[in-house]
């Protein structure tokens, strides 16, 4: 070991030299500094006395990190926890690597090396994780999964076989007055410090002496440590009761061993085995008379006595009432003493606390390594919307254009001219097979058999509670083949639902979810016919019909329906063609004043028509009756999902219903409360000022009062009325034009 002058680190702003091979703790001690002002040091990662802030990370065990030139160490404040970081903590993303093997051995001491060698002799693929090599295991999880922090990121090790815990045993620390002083070390730490060339001065050994050091052995029972900041003497009591004071510079502590078995206990029920000292039972030290038991939380023997005397007898309650064992070392130091204390006071020797992750600490950034946000899908037209300056929003689980900047202009393009909208987010599913008709008859509350090929029908989807799950279309392609559509929000759920029922009824069907394979563009407005004619479709399908057609040279399935209240054609096509189709439609309609419309305009348009949005206007206990959609439910059909629930709930008087509302003046915010005099009767679910009607139109929940829906209401302090829907074009002639 040579003293290279270039090896310097910074401690509390001052330069400190260190030797190659030093860990940060040794570097501090070499400079005559104690990382936490005092306390018995173990140099083994067990105790809380060498914690410091290293390179901006607090609570680092300095004995576990190699000293590095330029390393910045700040000692924690002596009287308070380290400060909460202010502002952002920039940092590079940490990577977690996944490693597969047969056997994991944790700890590379003698027993760990032996276990690894034995497994290798048996032809096993062995991964070893050794804290001394910077591979600190933070926990064992079901899987099983062993997670370790390493010097180049996190390692997630997945063993097919067993996990061997060879983490050895921790040394028991002293509990006596003065145990917070500097200069107290465990016997093993004393040996290591001597080897590192630290001058320990006069060493007094209590219990098992350190190896390789000349010491004065202190006999008897430990009474206290004397000194101001550093230990200057240790006081022992002989068998005859007399006290003896031994002057010293360092006290070496050899009071026994406690297995480092937290990982073993954490892995309880998994293929985990301990070997060597980790498998031993804990030495239980003599019950302490005085002094600090838990340094992390500052708990003394008196504190234990005080809570026990007030009825806290269970180990877990003592822990919770004092917080002993809840700090950084998670009971490593105090647990043997609390068990000893309670046993001494007449309780049975209670088992250790539950072992919970994490056993070695990691930062939140390290914990989050290789984690990803849930991705929000984008339609094939995402780039088009952004180029057009759209405000993109997450809506219904997708990125969608909320508005292109002129919502009212977009609205009028639909009402008076022609507009296109990206509805690729709709759920789309093909159903084929001899069992297809039966599947849909049993799944939907509508009569499917009467639906002719080439026709479509609006449908509700119910669950077994009779609540509305979703709405959409059933489109019949031929005798045994159907196309189903679902809302954007329902699309991720629809496949699970349909497949589950098809399997549960054992029906012979083929299902293909095409939600992510097909784009869909809605062409809507009184000039939609004209645009479609220009696009090559001179004879578009009638209302609620569908057929295949070539639109601007692109193969599409054309569904005629209407959500906006105007003539609408939904063009389903391969996502590979979305951009081309979109651009061609915009070009063909340029002189018609075509504009794309966003979600916000669409929500206005549909509200004028009184169309509900499942999830916005419905709640998760909305029956068809509550949303005024009983017309969509054919109870004279044989069984379908939700039928029995509707029969059951129909016997109960209705309590509330979704209703159309209107008022003069600006539209209240969605969520606005609805009052009948001073009685709360419900709230607004959808609300917009209708440009075409010149008043605010809304959907909202109303409670029935004495069996009647109230008609004259107050919303945001202004009078409002319950009115039938649709608000606009109540005969529906525009959509059928």
């Amino acid at each position, binding site marked *: 070991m040579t003293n290279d002058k270039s090896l310097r680190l910074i401690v509390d702003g001052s330069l400190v030299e260190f030797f190659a091979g030093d860990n940060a703790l040794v570097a501090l001690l070499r400079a005559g500094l104690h990382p936490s002002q005092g306390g018995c040091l173990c140099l083994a990662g067990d105790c809380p006395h060498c914690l410091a802030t290293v390179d901006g990370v607090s609570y680092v065990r300095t004995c576990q990190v190699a000293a590095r030139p330029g390393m910045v160490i700040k000692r924690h404040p002596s009287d308070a926890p380290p400060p909460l970081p202010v502002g952002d903590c920039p940092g590079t993303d940490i990577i977690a690597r996944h490693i597969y093997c047969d056997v994991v051995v944790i700890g590379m001491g003698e027993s760990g090396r032996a276990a690894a060698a034995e497994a290798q002799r048996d032809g096993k693929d062995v991964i070893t994780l050794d804290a001394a090599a910077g591979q600190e295991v933070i926990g064992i999880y079901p899987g099983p999964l062993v997670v370790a922090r390493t010097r180049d990121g996190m390692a997630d090790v997945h063993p097919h076989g067993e996990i061997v815990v060879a983490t050895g045993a921790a040394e028991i620390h002293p509990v006596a007055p003065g145990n917070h002083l500097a200069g107290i070390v465990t016997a093993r730490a004393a040996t290591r410090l001597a080897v590192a060339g630290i001058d320990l001065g006069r060493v007094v050994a209590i219990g098992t002496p350190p190896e390789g050091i000349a010491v004065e052995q202190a006999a008897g029972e430990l009474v206290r440590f004397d000194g101001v900041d550093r230990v200057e003497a240790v006081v022992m009591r002989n068998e005859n009761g007399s006290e003896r004071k031994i002057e010293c510079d360092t006290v070496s502590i050899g009071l026994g061993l406690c297995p480092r078995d937290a990982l073993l206990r954490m892995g309880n029920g998994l293929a985990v085995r301990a070997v060597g000292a980790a498998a031993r039972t804990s030495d239980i030290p003599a019950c302490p008379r005085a002094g600090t038991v838990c340094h992390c939380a500052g708990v003394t023997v008196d504190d234990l006595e005080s809570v026990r005397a007030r009825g806290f007898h269970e180990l877990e309650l003592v822990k919770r009432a004092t917080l002993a064992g809840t700090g950084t070392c998670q009971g490593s130091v105090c647990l043997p003493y609390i068990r000893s204390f309670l046993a001494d006071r007449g309780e049975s020797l209670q088992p250790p606390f539950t072992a919970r992750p994490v056993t070695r600490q990691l930062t939140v950034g390290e914990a989050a390594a290789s984690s990803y946000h849930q991705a929000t899908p984008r339609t094939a037209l995402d780039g088009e919307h952004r180029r057009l300056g759209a405000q993109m929003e997450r809506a219904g689980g997708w990125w969608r254009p909320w508005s292109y900047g002129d919502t009212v202009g977009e609205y009028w393009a639909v009402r008076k001219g022609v507009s296109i909208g990206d509805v690729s987010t709709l759920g789309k599913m093909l159903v084929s097979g001899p069992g297809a008709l039966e599947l849909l008859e049993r799944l939907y509350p509508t009569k499917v058999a009467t639906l002719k090929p080439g026709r479509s029908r609006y449908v509700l989807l119910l669950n077994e*509670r009779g609540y509305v799950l979703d709405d959409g279309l059933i489109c019949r392609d031929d005798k045994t083949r159907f196309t189903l559509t679902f809302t954007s929000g329902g699309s991720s759920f629809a496949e699970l639902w349909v*497949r589950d029922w098809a399997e549960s009824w054992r029906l012979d069907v083929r299902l293909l*979810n095409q939600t992510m394979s097909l784009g869909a563009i809605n062409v809507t407005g009184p000039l939609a016919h004209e645009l479609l004619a220009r696009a090559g479709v001179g004879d578009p399908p009638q209302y609620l019909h569908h057929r295949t057609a070539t639109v601007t040279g692109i193969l599409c399935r054309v569904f005629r329906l209407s959500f906006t209240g105007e003539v609408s054609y939904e063009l389903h096509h391969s996502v590979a063609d979305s951009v081309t189709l979109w651009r061609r439609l915009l070009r063909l309609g340029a002189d018609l004043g075509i504009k794309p419309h966003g979600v916000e305009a669409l929500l206005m348009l549909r509200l004028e028509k009184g169309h509900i949005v499942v999830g916005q206007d419905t709640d998760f206990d909305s029956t068809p009756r509550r949303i005024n959609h009983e017309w969509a439910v054919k109870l004279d059909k044989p069984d379908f999902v939700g039928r*029995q629930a509707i*029969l059951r709930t129909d016997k109960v008087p209705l309590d509330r219903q979704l209703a159309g509302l209107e008022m003069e003046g600006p539209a209240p915010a969605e969520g606005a409360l609805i009052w009948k005099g001073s009685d709360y009767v419900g709230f607004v679910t959808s609300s917009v000022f209708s440009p075409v009607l010149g008043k605010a139109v809304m959907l909202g929940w109303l409670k029935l009062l004495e069996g009647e829906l109230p008609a004259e209401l107050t919303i945001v302090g202004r009078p409002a009325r319950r009115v039938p829907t649709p608000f606009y074009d109540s005969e529906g002639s525009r959509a059928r034009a």
Partner: protein
Amino acid sequence: MSFHIPCPNCGARAIEEFVYGEIVVVPDSITDPDERNLDRAFIHGNPEGPTSERWFHAMGCQRWLTLRRDTRDEQIILTAR
């Protein structure tokens, strides 16, 4: 809690790749159709011990599988397609 589910189509995958599905069992002792529906709609067996359930492999084959799992310790006892 995360554990692995052996997908018969794809192999063992973390539970986070799947969507949970309950298998509802209404006791035969309930015979009234409304009561059976009420039980089916709202009541859960919620057993402490082995239970049969469905999982949909959303991140993989997008198919359902059926398995038995012990709710006390998450041990998986049996899987089927």
